[in-house]
């Protein structure tokens, strides 16, 4: 019964707080109260404390108050007889536990900066990654928003058998969940078990080793807190909003292996505040009544073969997984898996051999649904290291199929092929590259499986627009070249058609409220010349998505009368946004940063910000971790632009939008851009230079400063003056 659990949790919370406070006191003596403390590269300070209490722990001295708060929360032990209600005190104790653990870990970052790898994958000498920084968090957060990852399993300890551990990890991956791993059971560590069993561990495979002590469970909780703040627009300090948000939307749970210590109970009690239940394989008491969590709170003695199924059921999650009949595992969790040199069996394309992939639509009677033809050698016909050319030609037919949808369907190849465990796909079109891992070959991989995957998944996801799919795979040079010729023609036609499409030529724009599961008041407006800020949705995607699911997140918006062509004000757009945001956003100017800028959920590729002194605009991408001339890093800027609120001067944008003719039209367009990180500038170089050419200023590209010029407005301004940047002569917009 839960008295045992609550008693243990309260005991554990006292122990953890004592331990953390002791560490803090020692650090305080050593470093002084003014010493800065933080988790690596995050704008959310210590995120649990920040989100629950609204308190920013920036200096060691700031912890004093938080420890006092912990002491206030810590209840007395539960008495043997005539006890007082213990559930609420145990939940409070769990909360104190997280506060204490977060400070404990922050001191650890201070004292041992190299304790965790701070990378996306384990390093040779260290398997523990530590807390997710904001770059990882934002990248992964998108998956939480669009549903490719419904939640996470916070794992404590590990099953003793590495095969069992791997199987559970695989099952969780197949449910598309993230797997956060912490601590050990009798010295057995889950990520080590996985690595020993040749399972790839790291953010890319969603198997994330957070840390080797139970205190790192707070990294998982901190992740959840940040999801609510970054994407849900929950304000720091709005603890109830944050907790309910996570209860309702982040399908996370604790999975504990082996004996449960007081400290684990304390963490489990804390997690219940977020609606995250605990599922254990061990003989501990259960807490079945519902209320704080959606369903049960603690379920125990679950056999390993049932534990994943049980966990998602207890959490109230439904994962729609269509079974694809191939011998390898399949799902989004394997998308990021890499095939390293040592794991490689063979490869196709990518400059090693010829490679091409293309999708075309045909008449119904020309397509035999489900047919997968392989011409040329299959894997079983070659030996390791023998590479082959490849052409993947997919022919589809359907009553609702339009040629506009071809590139959308073709773009799916990349992630769909990557979803196969043991296969890696890079690039697209005629620069595609497929690497086949030894593990996949051992399981019996055949090129035909790629065909099966494409057939099955295209049907599943695009059944509303296509009726038939056939796949032809060629591994013979002559055939491959034939397809390459065909593809070239198709690409040229497509590019021409897309290039002619502008905001003026189309009467209908598309909304995107895919993120409303996380950011309830945010609405994206996608126009032909403005891609969604996540970079993942363009106008054609919106169109296809609407076709597939007429009541789905992408709705057509009749743009209506254009009341201001420079600002990009459309009567129809404003009406729609006002209604879809439930009045939170009455108007959006499609081409302006300063007037009614578009809101953002938080999963933008880049952020544009006005630099008043330079009279220009800077844009910083998510991967750039350094300082920017705005005085803020990306992570801090993200706080200004995200959460569904309009903040003139700050806006989330896609990288692609930088090359659009409609870029910041209200502020003067590309000529207003004064600073970009070098990496972004390089990435977009070709297209940006073409745009500079098009506006009659080919020299503009070199006038745009980067971090090498400087990361202060003064330094950038000096550079702009020296180069004679056009922004300086433009009228001020502030």
């Amino acid at each position, binding site marked *: 019964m839960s008295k045992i659990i609550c008693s243990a949790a309260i005991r554990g919370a006292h122990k953890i707080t004592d331990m953390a406070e002791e560490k803090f006191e020692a650090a305080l003596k050593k470093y002084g109260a003014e010493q800065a403390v933080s988790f690596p590269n995050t704008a959310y300070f210590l995120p649990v404390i920040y989100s629950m209490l609204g308190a920013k722990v920036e200096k060691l001295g700031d912890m004093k108050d938080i420890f006092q708060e912990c002491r206030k929360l810590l209840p007395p032990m539960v008495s043997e007889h005539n*006890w007082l209600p213990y559930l609420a*005190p145990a939940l*409070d104790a769990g909360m104190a536990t997280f506060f204490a653990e977060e400070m404990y870990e922050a001191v650890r970052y201070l004292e041992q900066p190299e304790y965790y790898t701070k990378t996306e994958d384990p390093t040779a000498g260290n398997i523990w990654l530590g807390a997710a920084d904001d770059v990882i968090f934002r990248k992964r957060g998108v998956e939480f928003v669009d549903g490719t990852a419904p939640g996470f399993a916070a794992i404590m300890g590990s099953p003793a058998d590495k095969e069992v551990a791997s199987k559970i990890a695989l099952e969780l991956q197949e449910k598309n969940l993230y797997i956060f791993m912490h601590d050990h059971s009798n010295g057995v560590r889950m990520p080590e078990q996985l690595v020993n069993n040749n399972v790839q561990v790291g953010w890319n495979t969603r198997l994330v080793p957070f840390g080797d002590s139970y205190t790192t469970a707070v990294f998982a909780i901190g992740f959840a807190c940040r999801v609510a703040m970054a994407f849900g627009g929950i304000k720091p300090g709005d*603890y109830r909003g944050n907790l309910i948000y996570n209860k*309702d939307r982040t399908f996370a749970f604790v999975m504990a292996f082996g004996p449960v210590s007081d400290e684990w109970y304390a963490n489990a009690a804390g997690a219940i505040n977020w609606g995250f239940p605990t599922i254990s394989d061990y003989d501990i008491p259960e807490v079945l*009544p*519902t*209320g704080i969590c959606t369903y049960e709170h603690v379920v125990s003695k679950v056999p390993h073969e049932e534990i994943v199924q049980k966990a998602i059921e207890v959490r109230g999650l439904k994962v729609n997984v269509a079974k694809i009949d191939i011998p390898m595992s399949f799902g989004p969790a394997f998308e990021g898996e890499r095939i390293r040199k040592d794991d490689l069996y063979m490869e196709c394309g990518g400059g090693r051999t010829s490679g091409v992939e293309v999708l075309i639509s045909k008449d119904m009677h020309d397509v035999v649904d489900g047919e997968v033809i392989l011409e040329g050698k299959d894997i079983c016909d070659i030996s390791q290291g023998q590479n082959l050319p490849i052409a993947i030609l997919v022919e589809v037919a359907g009553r609702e199929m339009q040629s506009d949808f071809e590139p959308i369907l073709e773009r799916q190849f990349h992630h769909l092929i990557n979803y196969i465990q043991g296969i890696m796909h890079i690039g697209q079109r005629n620069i595609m590259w497929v690497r086949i891992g030894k593990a996949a070959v051992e399981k019996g991989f055949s090129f035909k499986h790629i065909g099966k995957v494409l057939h099955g998944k295209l049907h599943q996801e695009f059944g509303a627009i296509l009726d038939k799919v056939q796949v032809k795979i060629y591994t013979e040079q002559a055939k491959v070249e034939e397809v390459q010729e065909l593809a070239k023609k198709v690409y040229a036609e497509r590019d021409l058609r897309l290039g002619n499409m502008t905001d003026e030529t189309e009467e209908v724009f598309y909304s995107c409220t895919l993120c409303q*599961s996380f950011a309830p008041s945010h609405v994206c407006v996608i126009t032909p010349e403005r891609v969604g800020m996540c970079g993942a949705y363009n106008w054609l995607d919106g169109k296809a998505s609407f076709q597939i699911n007429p009541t789905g997140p992408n709705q057509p918006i009749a743009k209506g009368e254009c009341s201001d062509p420079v600002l990009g004000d459309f009567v129809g757009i404003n009406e729609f946004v006002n209604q879809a945001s439930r009045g939170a956003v009455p108007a959006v100017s499609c081409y302006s940063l300063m007037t009614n800028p578009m809101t953002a959920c938080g999963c933008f590729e880049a952020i544009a910000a006005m630099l008043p002194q330079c009279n220009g605009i800077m844009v910083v991408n998510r991967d750039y971790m350094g300082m920017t001339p705005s005085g803020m890093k990306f992570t801090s800027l993200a706080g200004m632009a995200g959460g569904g609120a309009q903040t003139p001067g700050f806006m989330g944008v896609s990288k692609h939008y930088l090359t659009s003719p409609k870029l910041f039209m209200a502020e003067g367009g590309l000529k207003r851009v004064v600073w970009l990180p070098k990496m972004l500038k390089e990435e977009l170089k070709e297209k940006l230079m073409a745009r500079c050419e098009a506006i009659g200023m080919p020299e503009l590209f070199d006038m745009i400063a980067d971090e090498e010029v400087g990361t202060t407005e003064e330094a950038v301004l000096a550079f702009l003056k020296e180069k004679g940047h056009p922004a300086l002569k433009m009228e001020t917009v502030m």
Partner: protein
Amino acid sequence: MAISRNGCEGCTEITCTSTKNVLAKDIAKNVITAYDRVKMRGMSACLFGSTGTCCRNCNMGPCQIIDGVDEMIGVCGATADTVVARNFCRTIASGSAAHTDHAREMVKGFIATAKGETPHEIKDVNKLMMLANIFGVATEGKDKNAIALEIGELALADFGKQDDKPVTMLKRAPKKRQELWKRLGIEPRGIDREVVEIMHRTHMGVDQEYQNLMLQGARCALGDGWGSSMLSTELTDIMFGTPVPRRSIVDLGVLKPDQVNVTVHGHEPLLAEALCLAAQDEELLALARKVGAKGINLAGVCCTGNEILMRRGIPVAAGFIQQEMALATGAIEAMVVDVQCIMQSLAEVAKSFHTDVITTNYRAKMPGAVHIQFNEEDALGSAKEILKKAVNNFKKRGEFFIPQDNKLDVVVGFSHETINYMLGGRFRSSYRPLNDNIINGRIRGVAAIVGCDNYKFPDNNHEIIARELIKNDVLVLATGCAATGLGRVGLVRPEAAQFAGPGLREVCETVGMPPVLHCGSCVDNSRLLIAATEMVREGGLGDDISSLPLAGTAPLWMSEKAVAIGQYFVSSGAYVIFQSLPLTGSKNFHKFMTEGMDEIYGGCWDIEEDPLKLARKMIARIDLKRKELGIDKKRERVLFDMEMRRDLGAGSPLKDVGCHGPTPA
């Protein structure tokens, strides 16, 4: 005089062990208790009085009315319907008046506290702010005493208000309920005014239509529940602290052989709180030591006991029915009384011992007692004077008997705020788990057992009812002497979860709570109104109190206050069942109260003598409500996919499962 000490003919058997143990001792042999008087009186209760058909409202009578016998209507022509209804209304008026006068004292004490004129302080600032919001008092930049003063004055105005607007607290009720009251025209206006209006309308020759009379009866009772009682509870909480869970003990065994035993009896906590402060006074403690006592032991009797039990964990020695037994121990130096439910026999019983019965309120004096007026302006001084008298009595203590084994652990302090906190902690406090587990059937429903003790029925009736309810997974909320009685039999401690049905037991074990929650004194029944409202607000159980799987009872009621309480619950939408009510003398009125009211209020009265059957009727009502809500069947677990999750923000139809989307700000 040979007195049977196991009850008597005409009254009922005593089952309470401590009562039996005390009465069996020689020192108690001269004590005549209510049990004895029932026998000595030698006649059963008047049938006209018992059924409500005795009219003595004018000097043409008194008239005894017999329903259905044309010759036996009143001299004025008043029918049984009219007479029973008038009498019932007057009972409500009297009960409400008692709560109201009590509440007025508390509000005045609150104002005095805000002005710094008492030894007390504004303790619960959160609740103060909550009330400021309700009363529309601006708080910014004001100190707590200034805010309290404003609230206090507005609260006091609610008593004497002459405009036709509803009393302030009424707006705390569920929206739908407020609309119903408005439609019926029974929103209470001035709290005092409604009592006066009843007295007027029941005067000879005024309101002679029983349905119309009961509209005023309902209005007066609502003025009590949502007006005076609620004001009293809330302002008392602000002054003396909102109850939080505490351990304590109950029954006569809480008296201490080596200390000065002072029992406080009555209803108003102002005096008791002052006594609590004074009992820690060094000077008095020194005096106690000087007379050979190890200390001063305060213990409660009746609802004053419940007040200081809830807020300070001070033990309760006895409920109403045991007030004479407490004196019969010979171990009490002084019984300090204020108002309500104090038997005149106390002074007589005290004569056999060294005990002083000290009256303290000018409203309530009695022959044979010592009167020391409790002076609010010098509360501590008054308290010290009283205690000094008690301490000085210690030396005079003769032979005594304390049934030391007769005491039981209790956990008390289940205010609305405690319930809200205990179900989710500081960060997730809400009634969600309660509603959820009612919806999923672990908890069948909620029952209130409130009210007094009585000699008409066996003293174990509370226990029988409570055991049957919890066995059937009904969570019990108890107040007043009913709560004390349930404490005496061990149902108010967490270990009692073992007596609950499997579902309720599981929830009790999860939360760590007893299956019977002690919610305070009889005036604190207003806490139950708030709890019921909160259940409605939390969602999933309908949109009004009348849709909740809820039932209330005051089985062993004796005070008119219980009828006022019952009526404000009925008018708020609850099913209320008593063991007897003086309304059976009119078939029409009886039918109206037990059926007609259900149609108007979605709540009604019911009568059942047999305690077990009474409990089962409560369960049947709860089951009916479950059925109406559609939660009587087992329901499939709802699993969420991404699409459903997206719909959360847009008002999903899936309102009755665990997920409810973000709480609106």
